[in-house]
C-alpha cells in the first residue's frame, strides 16, 4: 500500500525522531569535515563500546519513563551488582552465564524493592529512588570500604571478540562484549515495547493509569516488571562497564545518572509517561555520544562538555514543547 507508506512517512516527518536524525546528520557532517578522525570505523566502534553502559541503562530508564515513573537509583544498583558479582566470581570461580545470572538477579531484586515502595506505599517514584540510591550506595561503601577490585578472572578480563576482521594495516575490529550487550538490549527492549502485549500495556498505563485500571490491567504487576527491568538492565550494564574498565570501582558509577536521563529525554521520552521510543532513545544516545566525542576531537576543553549537553537538551525539549503548543492552538477551534 504505497499510500499508507506515504502517510506513515508523513507522520515520521513530524516526529521528534525525525528532527533528531537531521540534527545528528548535520552534526556528523560538520564534525567529519572539521576532523578526519571523526568519521572513521575506529571512532564508530570506540563510541559504541564506550557508550554501551549509558545506552543499556537508557533502555531500562526508557521503559520506566513510558510506564509513567522514574528511577535514578540504577547507578547504585549497578555498583552493587558489579561488586557482588565479581567478588563471587573471584572467590568461587564462574563463567559468563554465571556472572550475568548473578548480576541480573541482584539488579532485578533491587528493582523489585523500588517497585514495592512505589506501588504499595504510593510514594512518588522520584523520592523512592533518591532514597534507595543512597541506601544501596551507602551499604556498598560501608561493606567494601570503597576498595577497588583490580584483579578480575582472566576470562572476564579478556572479554569476547567475535567476527574479528582486519581493517587497513594493523587495526582489527570485532563485536566485543559491550557492543553485543548493547545490541541485544536494544533488540530485546524493542521487542518488549512493540511486539509484546505487555509492552503495549506499559504504554497504555503510562498514558492513562485510571483508564488502564478500569480496563483490568494489572497495574501493580506491570510496575513491578518495569522496575525489575530497569534493575536487570543495570545488572547487565554493570558487567559491561567492569569489563571495559578492567576493574570494579564502587565509587565511579554513582553520579552518571544524569547522562542516562539526558540520553532518554533527548530521545523524546516524556517524564509525564506514555511517550518514548527505542529509536528515539538510540538517537538520543547517539547525539549525546557525538556531542561529547566531538568536543574532544575539536580540541575544546572537556570541561565544556556538560555545558553543551545541557544546552542541547534545553533546546531540544523546548523545540518539542513549542511545536506541540503550536499544533494545539491550531487545532483548538476550527
Amino acid at each position, binding site marked *: 500500500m504505497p499510500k*499508507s507508506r506515504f502517510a506513515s512517512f508523513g507522520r515520521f516527518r513530524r516526529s521528534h525522531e525525525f528532527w533528531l536524525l537531521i540534527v545528528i546528520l548535520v552534526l556528523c557532517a560538520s564534525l567529519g569535515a572539521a576532523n578526519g578522525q571523526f568519521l572513521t570505523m575506529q571512532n564508530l566502534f570506540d563510541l559504541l563500546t564506550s557508550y554501551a553502559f549509558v545506552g543499556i541503562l537508557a533502555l531500562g530508564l526508557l521503559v520506566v519513563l513510558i510506564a509513567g515513573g522514574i528511577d535514578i537509583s540504577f547507578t547504585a544498583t549497578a555498583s552493587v551488582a558489579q561488586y557482588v558479582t565479581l567478588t563471587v566470581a573471584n572467590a568461587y570461580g564462574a563463567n559468563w552465564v554465571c556472572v550475568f545470572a548473578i548480576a541480573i538477579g541482584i539488579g532485578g531484586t533491587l528493582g523489585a524493592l523500588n517497585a514495592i515502595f512505589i506501588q504499595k506505599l504510593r510514594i512518588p517514584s522520584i523520592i523512592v529512588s533518591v532514597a534507595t540510591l543512597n541506601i544501596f550506595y551507602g551499604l556498598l561503601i560501608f561493606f567494601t570500604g570503597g576498595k577497588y577490585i583490580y584483579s578480575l578472572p582472566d576470562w572476564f578480563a579478556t572479554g569476547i571478540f567475535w567476527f574479528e576482521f582486519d581493517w587497513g594495516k594493523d587495526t582489527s575490529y570485532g563485536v566485543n562484549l559491550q557492543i553485543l550487550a548493547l545490541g541485544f538490549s536494544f533488540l530485546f527492549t524493542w521487542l518488549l515495547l512493540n511486539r509484546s502485549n505487555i509492552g503495549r500495556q506499559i504504554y497504555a498505563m503510562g498514558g492513562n493509569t485510571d483508564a488502564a485500571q478500569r480496563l483490568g490491567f494489572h497495574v501493580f504487576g506491570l510496575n513491578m516488571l518495569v522496575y525489575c527491568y530497569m534493575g536487570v538492565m543495570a545488572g547487565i550494564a554493570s558487567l559491561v562497564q567492569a569489563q571495559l574498565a578492567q576493574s570494579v570501582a564502587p565509587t565511579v558509577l554513582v553520579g552518571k545518572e544524569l547522562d542516562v536521563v539526558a540520553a532518554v529525554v533527548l530521545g523524546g521520552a516524556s517524564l509525564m509517561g506514555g511517550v518514548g521510543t527505542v529509536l528515539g532513545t538510540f538517537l538520543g544516545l547517539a547525539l549525546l555520544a557525538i556531542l561529547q566525542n566531538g568536543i574532544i576531537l575539536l580540541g575544546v576543553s572537556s570541561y565544556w562538555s556538560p555545558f553543551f549537553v545541557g544546552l542541547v537538551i534545553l533546546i531540544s525539549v523546548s523545540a518539542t514543547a513549542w511545536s506541540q503548543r503550536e499544533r494545539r492552538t491550531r487545532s483548538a477551534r476550527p
Partner: protein
Amino acid sequence: MTTFLEMSGISKRFGGVHALRDVDLTLEVGEVHCLVGENGSGKSTLIKIISGVEAPEPGGRIVISGKEYPKLSPVYSTHCGIQVIYQDLSLFSNLTVVENIAMAHHLGGVHTVNWSSMRAIAMATMAKVGIEVDPETKVSELSIAGRQLVAICRALAADAKLLIMDEPTASLTRHEVNTLIKLVSDLKRSGICVVFVSHRLDEVLEIAERVTVLRDGAKVGTFAAAAIDGSKLSHLMTGKAFEYQKQVPDLAVGAVVLEVQGLGRDGDYDDVSLQLRAGEVVGLTGLLGSGRTELALSLFGMNPPDRGTMALDGHRVVLNTNADAIRRGIAYVSEDRLTLGLILDQSITSNVTLTVLERLAGAFGLIGTRARQSHVARWVAELGIKVSDPNNPVKTLSGGNQQRIVLAKWMATNPRVLILDSPTVGVDIRAKDGIYEIIRRLAREGVAVLMISDEIPEVLYHSHRVLVMREGRLTADVMAADTSEDALRQAVNA
C-alpha cells in the same frame, strides 16, 4: 422483553455521606434508558457500581442475565458485556485509534501483538459506527466528538451488551449530538442496551424509552419517556421542597463596577461585551467548552485576552496575573474546589486566612495567632459554617461546608466583583439553599456577583440577569424575569 440487569437495595456511603440509598434499577435488552438527576444525585456512583469500580454496601443484589452477584469487579462486569464510557472517555491519548479500539487484544497472558488483527478489528468497528479518520492517528489529535466515537468503537469491539454513557453530550455541539443520537438508535436495533446519563432534559426525552430519576442518592422512580415532559422531569429531579422565585433586581442596583468591551482570546472566546453592576447577581451559562470558564479566568487575570478592554469603575485596567485582579477587588471561586479552591489537608484556619495573610500580618510580617483566630471565628459565624474545631483539616467537613469555607476565604478579601464558577456542584439541595442565601446577601451588600453554572434553573432563579455563551460567543443577555427555562435551554443548545 428480556431483562439484562436487575439491581435492588443498592446503597453506597463515602465517609459520612450517603451517595446512594436503597436504589433499584432494571434494564431490558435493547432499550435506551436514561438516568437523570442533578449533580450529586448519585448517578455516577450508581454507574461505578454497575461497572464494578465501587462495591455497594452489603445487602444489595445484582442480577445480570439471570446470574446473581453480591458485587461486581471491573473484570466480571466487562465479561458480562457491560461497557462504560466515562465522561473523561478513558482513552489512551498517547496511542493510535487502532490500538485504543482494539485495546482488549492486549489483555490476557503474555503474547505477541498481532497488529494486523488489531487493525482488522478496529476497521470493522469503525465501519459499523461510521467514523472516517486515519486509524493510525493518535487519539490526542482528534476532536472531542472524534474521541467519543473512538470510545464507542472500543466498547463495541469488546462485545458490549450494555453500553453506559456518562454525560456523553456535555461537550458536543448540537450537530454532533444528533449524530450520536442516531448512532444510539442503531445500537439499540442491534440489541444493545444503552444507558444514557445526562442532565439535559430535552435530549433525555428525545432518545429514551424509560427514564429513571435520582435525587439526593435515592430513586424517585422510573417513568416511560412518552408519559413525561420536561417540566415534570425537572420537578422530579429537583424536588418541590425548594421552590424559588425569579430574582427581581433591587432598585438599589448600583453603578457599573466591571465593564468589558469586545474581549477575545484565540481558541477560547471572542467579541464578548458585558457589564456587572454593584448589587447584581449575573448568571452565566453555556455548555462545557463554550468558553465560559475561560472568560471567567480572563476576568480574574489568569487567561489574558488577546483583544478588547476591561474597565473597573470606569477606569481601564489590564490584568496580567490573578494577583492584579485580587488587588483590584476581584475574587474567583473555582469550579473544582477540591483541587483548586481548598488545601484539603490543611486546617480550616489556614484555608480561611490564605487570601488575607498580608492584611493579618503585624510587626515584621509575622502573623499573630490571635489575629488569625478572631478572623476565622468571625467568618465561621457570619456564614453559619458548622465547625467543631477550626484546627481540623478542611477535608473533615461536608461538601456544603467546604464550599462555604471557599466563599469565606474570598469574602474576607472584601471583593467588589465575585466570580463563582459552578458554586453548587456536588453539594446537596439544602446546602445549595444556604449558598444561594449567601450570594443574595453579598449582592445586597453591594458586591457584583458573576455566577457560572451548568444548571439552567440555577441561573434563572438565582440571578437578576442571565448571560448565555455558545461556541465562544455571548449569545444572550436577558433579565431573569423576562425569560424562561425553555428559552434559556434553547439559547444554550441552539
